[in-house]
């Protein structure tokens, strides 16, 4: 992640300060959840907004504080809650905090003795983009732009609607009804672990206005998203304002699913408590075996193992020794997610094999019993491909609703899953040579 603001070429010539501000910051909740926050703010710059450089800086600061507080109070996994936060509660909180901050700034100034405070003096836009492990979102108001880039496409996902009337008009934090206007720019997009890596680029209007057309702006965004250090980005932005609009320019860039410490990505699969116990069992047994040298604890350890095995046996398909034929209940949400993922892959069959190849650990852990098929299927909304893989697992019965659903999918998906299961079984030594196609079941691994 990276953010940078550069003074506009015309502002530099006129001796004006940079009235843009920006930030890219990683926030962490007390629970250890990571959230990337991108922000750009553009002070209005006209003579009546003469403290807008302060206004934009305070806008970014207060936004970061407000999002951090929300992160402490709300689980990132609760998408619906964060959607509400982006549309309603964060705007109100940031608006309130910004007003308090600019008024406090005003009170410290000599002009406060002779002039009444007006938030207009500090007028600024504010755009925010948030990148979490399982969703990304945006909110704000004003003429900022948000572009989403992945290997396949570059899309302008949020821009200010035409306000009508005079030129260069934009919504602003200093408007009396500002908080209401955030809703128009708010949105949340859920992510799956299968989502290809992508980047978000948030920019102030000076960047887009420096490009001849929107197509040029999208091309420029793609170039900027590849810049990795602040110095190069600052040089690029200086070049943009000099050859373009002359306005202050800001960008904030965040990455999802890319390699590297600063990018954020999908959460690791969360196995159930039973699965964690199952995974710990061999360790416990080993530890107990060591202790058993003393002769006293071995019996207890074996008892614990038996207890675990007994519990797993009560859960369908919960261990490598679980017999085929176990079933799992399939919720409507999980079914919908499975069907959606199946349709998505069947529409793009070229994606099937590479997607499955990336899931080798899931195949392996399902085979070994470290992962439980019902657990993955229950988490289908968050990891639909993982659930699809689990649906083909031998932990489930042939007649289970999941396997029936899989049998209804396209032949490309079924064959690719069969192939992947065969490879994994061969690798793990759990499978005899692959059966001839003529005798192989049509859809079961």
């Amino acid at each position, binding site marked *: 992640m990276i953010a940078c603001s550069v003074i506009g*070429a*015309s502002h530099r010539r*006129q001796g004006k300060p940079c009235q843009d501000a920006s930030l890219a910051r990683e926030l962490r909740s007390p629970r250890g959840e990571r959230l990337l926050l991108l922000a750009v703010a*553009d002070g*209005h*710059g*006209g*003579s*009546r*907004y003469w403290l807008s450089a302060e206004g934009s800086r305070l806008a970014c600061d207060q936004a970061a504080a407000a999002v951090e507080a929300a992160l402490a109070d709300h689980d990132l996994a609760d998408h619906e809650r964060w959607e509400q936060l982006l549309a309603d509660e964060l705007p109100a909180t940031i608006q309130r905090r910004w007003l308090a901050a600019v008024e406090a700034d005003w009170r410290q100034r000599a002009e406060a003795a002779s002039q009444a405070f007006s938030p*207009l003096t500090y*007028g600024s*836009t504010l755009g925010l983009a948030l990148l979490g492990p399982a969703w990304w979102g945006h909110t704000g108001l004003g*003429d900022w732009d948000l572009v989403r880039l992945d290997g396949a496409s570059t899309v302008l996902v949020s821009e200010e609607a*035409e*306000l*009508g*009337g*005079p*030129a*260069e*008009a*934009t*919504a*602003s934090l*200093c*408007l009396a009804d500002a908080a209401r*206007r955030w809703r128009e720019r708010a949105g949340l997009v859920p992510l799956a672990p299968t989502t290809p890596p992508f980047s978000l680029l948030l920019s102030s*209007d000076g960047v*887009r*206005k*420096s*490009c*001849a*057309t*929107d197509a*040029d702006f999208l*091309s*420029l965004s793609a*170039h900027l998203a590849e*810049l990795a250090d602040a110095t*190069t*980005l600052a*040089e*690029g932005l200086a*070049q*943009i304002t000099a*050859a*373009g*609009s*002359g*306005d202050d320019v800001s960008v904030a860039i965040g990455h999802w699913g890319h390699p590297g410490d600063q990018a954020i990505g999908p959460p690791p699969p969360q196995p159930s408590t039973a699965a964690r116990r199952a995974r710990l069992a061999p360790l416990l047994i080993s530890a107990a075996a060591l202790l058993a040298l003393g002769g006293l604890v071995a019996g207890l350890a074996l008892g614990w193992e038996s207890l675990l095995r007994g519990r797993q046996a009560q859960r369908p398909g919960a261990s490598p020794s679980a017999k085929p034929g176990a079933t799992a209940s399939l919720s409507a949400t999980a079914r919908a997610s499975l069907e959606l993922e199946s349709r998505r892959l069947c529409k793009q069959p070229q994606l099937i094999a590479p997607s499955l190849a990336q899931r080798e650990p899931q195949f392996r852990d399902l085979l070994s019993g470290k992962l439980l098929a019902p657990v993955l299927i229950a988490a289908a909304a968050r990891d639909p491909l993982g659930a699809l893989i689990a649906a083909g697992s031998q932990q489930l019965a042939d007649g289970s609703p999941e396997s029936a659903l899989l049998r209804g999918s396209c032949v490309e998906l079924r064959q690719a899953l069969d192939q992947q299961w065969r490879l994994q079984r061969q690798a793990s030594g759990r499978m005899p040579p692959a059966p001839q196609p003529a005798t192989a079941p049509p859809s079961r691994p």
Partner: protein
Amino acid sequence: MPSFPNVRLASRPLHFIYLCDCSGSMAAQGKMQALNQAIRQSLPGMARVARENPEARVLVRAVRFADRAHWHIATPTPVEELQWQDLQAGGVTAMGEALDLLAEQLASPPMEERALPPVLVLISDGQPTDDFETSLGRLMRQPWAQKAVRLAIALGHDADLEVLQQFIGPDPSSGQAPGTVPAGGVPAGEVPGASGEMPRHAVAGAGRSDRSPRRPLQASNATALAQYIQWASTAVVGAASMPASRVGDGQGGTSGAGNIPLPDLPPTLLDPVDDIGPVVW
């Protein structure tokens, strides 16, 4: 230094368009000659302002109107390349048709997505002889016409100030209905004739509260005309070249009147009804 292949970075076009009355009455008392001379003499100053603001590409066009309206300079021409061809007077005043020509060019396209607010300067000594109001309505439906800085210069005392005020737009501070002209002059230091923002000193409280800067500039002689043309082509172009963003209320208005903050008129032009030099028109 990073490179951005296949990206066209570009300065923003600033369209400056004259709408010149070439009716027969303009031939009287040297008005046509004064207008040609004023525009020609303003070009070096305009080119200088353009050079000082490289982020704006100043492009000039002109419409002439008499019995019919025509593009006098049809191609948006960089000011440094402009060679002014004299206008000729003769005919009636097809001002509405001139607005129709303008409206066609202020549609998007051909207007560029990222253009700066255009500057439109209407210069007339009389009254329209066609359906001005219908044409003005058509023009003002174009978003770029709404965003434009609209100026009007009245030559002599026969000019229809109400029509010119309609072109500029209603003066919110006058408390009068659109299309009406408040009586009296403009207080010293205020900016008359511009659909622009209240000048700084006026905001600070100078001047009379019942006066407005958004009114036609009245040129009573060649000197005044030259100074108004010079002001529009330099100070206004300079201001329009580096517009600051401003607060929009989402209802098509802003928290301050006008499209861009405009500079003050030169000191000799503080009051548009003052006579500067001998009255000849």
